[in-house]
């Protein structure tokens, strides 16, 4: 219900802005017309129109959903790899303080390298080594994983250290060793933090997959459609906007999957949820 209200408000905001700027002929920050801000209804209508300018061929939405599914495969694989690697790295760094002090700055540094620079390198390095079934899209998954692992690592460390000090003392009084404390106390205590990171990672993996598709020039994903429609933007702006909508929907559905899993897995006092 709330979702629909917000959606309606956003729709109204878009159309209201459009109308006001056109009516007053304002040019700052940009001129508003059918090219810069098409009617939302036109964008949705375009989804049911033909994908190619000539008016023949499959509907745009069919083409975009197909692309989205391909991108989703890359993003999901990347998300899984990134989440696992990120979690494992977080556990190791949390258990060994010296490693944490030595390695964490490099983990941070890895994220300051622009993904647009890393992406083509990963494609060039990884693609020749990948077996046929993984070619191209496997390399893109690696790029998505690269964006996913970082928040997971950082929040895993933070979460594992969030366990109550006295709870750890109690575990020691039960003669529990470090690994049992990790599994029985620190890991469950970290779950809300880990899920917060997985939500960030889920949307980041979609962005990573889209960016990864550009240098590898994979024709099947949404990335190729973005390139394609941005070239035609001045004559047919609705195509790029429609692609945008589908890409956003993909990111949102990734996010929602994590939210649902969290609801099933994490049982906390309402005030202790992150």
């Amino acid at each position, binding site marked *: 219900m709330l979702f629909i209200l917000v959606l309606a408000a956003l729709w109204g905001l878009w159309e209201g802005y459009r109308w006001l700027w056109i009516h007053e002929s304002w040019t700052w920050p940009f001129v508003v017309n059918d090219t810069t801000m098409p009617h939302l209804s036109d964008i949705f209508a375009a989804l049911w129109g033909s994908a190619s300018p000539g008016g023949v061929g499959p509907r745009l939405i069919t083409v975009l959903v197909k692309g989205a599914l391909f991108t989703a495969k890359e993003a999901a694989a990347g998300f899984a790899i990134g989440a696992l690697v990120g979690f494992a790295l977080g556990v190791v760094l949390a258990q060994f303080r010296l490693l944490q002090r030595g390695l964490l700055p490099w983990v941070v540094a890895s994220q300051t390298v622009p993904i647009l620079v890393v992406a083509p390198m990963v494609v060039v390095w990884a693609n020749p080594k990948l077996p046929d079934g993984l070619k191209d899209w496997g390399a893109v998954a690696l790029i998505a994983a690269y964006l996913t692992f970082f928040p997971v690592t950082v929040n895993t460390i933070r979460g594992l250290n969030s366990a*109550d000090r*006295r*709870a750890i*003392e*109690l*575990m*020691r*009084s*039960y*003669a*529990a060793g470090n690994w*049992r404390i990790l599994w*029985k*106390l620190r890991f*469950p205590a970290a*779950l809300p933090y880990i899920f917060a990171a997985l939500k960030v990672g889920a949307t980041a993996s979609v962005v990573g997959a889209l960016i990864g598709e550009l240098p590898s020039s994979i024709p099947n994903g949404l990335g190729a459609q973005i390139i394609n429609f941005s070239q035609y933007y001045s004559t047919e702006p609705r195509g790029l906007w429609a692609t945008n909508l589908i890409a956003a929907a993909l990111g949102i559905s990734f996010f929602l999957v994590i939210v649902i899993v969290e609801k099933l897995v*994490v*049982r*906390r*006092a*309402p005030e*202790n949820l992150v």
Partner: protein
Amino acid sequence: MTDRATVVEINGVSKKFGQTTALQGIELEIAEREFVSLIGPSGCGKSTLLRIIGDLIEPSAGTVVVNGKSARQARRDRDYGIVFQDPVLYDWRTVAKNVALPLEVARWPRQKRNERVRKMLELVELQGFESHRPWQLSGGMQQRVSIARALSFDPALLLMDEPFGALDEMTRERLNMELLKIWEASGSTIVFVTHSIAEAVFLSTRVVVMSPRPGRISELIPIDLQQPRTGTTREEPHFFELVTRVREALHLGHDLERAAPAAREATA
């Protein structure tokens, strides 16, 4: 008391945190089935002493022997049940699973575990709350879960650090009675840290009065009230006499602290 086995033997224990001396020259013996309360003003090191007995921190000097073993070995043998002021229950576990936690760590088989959990919840009168989550219980009930958990693996020694300090007076008095019943039923030895003079006198067989800066034992007061303690124990004249004795011992410790070091030596 002499005919009972010694459970805890503290020899010349001192503890320094940086420049601060938290404890100095602690000597104390606790016999089997004793209920010993440590009482004193904030900063007298009573919680520190409790943590040293439980091998949660190490003393800077001196030794602690528990059941004829080092404190470290006693902890590894699961001789300690610990209860803090906060119940420290796991949010993500049900009441029953919280009580079962130490048993899981000790790798008890499931059936034995369930049986024991049922018995412990009976002991603290929480039958029917097995599948509740901790946050659905009142503070007093949470603390009872915490006690059930501490006793679940039948530790020889129960260490309690102001377990009822956060509860209201009514709940506290009721839990005092329950604790005494549990103490009797379980046959364990209890070391109990408290701020409350009345609580210490009511519960204990012996009260250890401590004074601060540096933390030390200023007096040992045996509590010879009749066992078992009842609802009317708090109304006996002898109860008030003992409360007065403990209060005076506490004030003496305070005065000592304020007096010049020379005067302290003179009184000693």
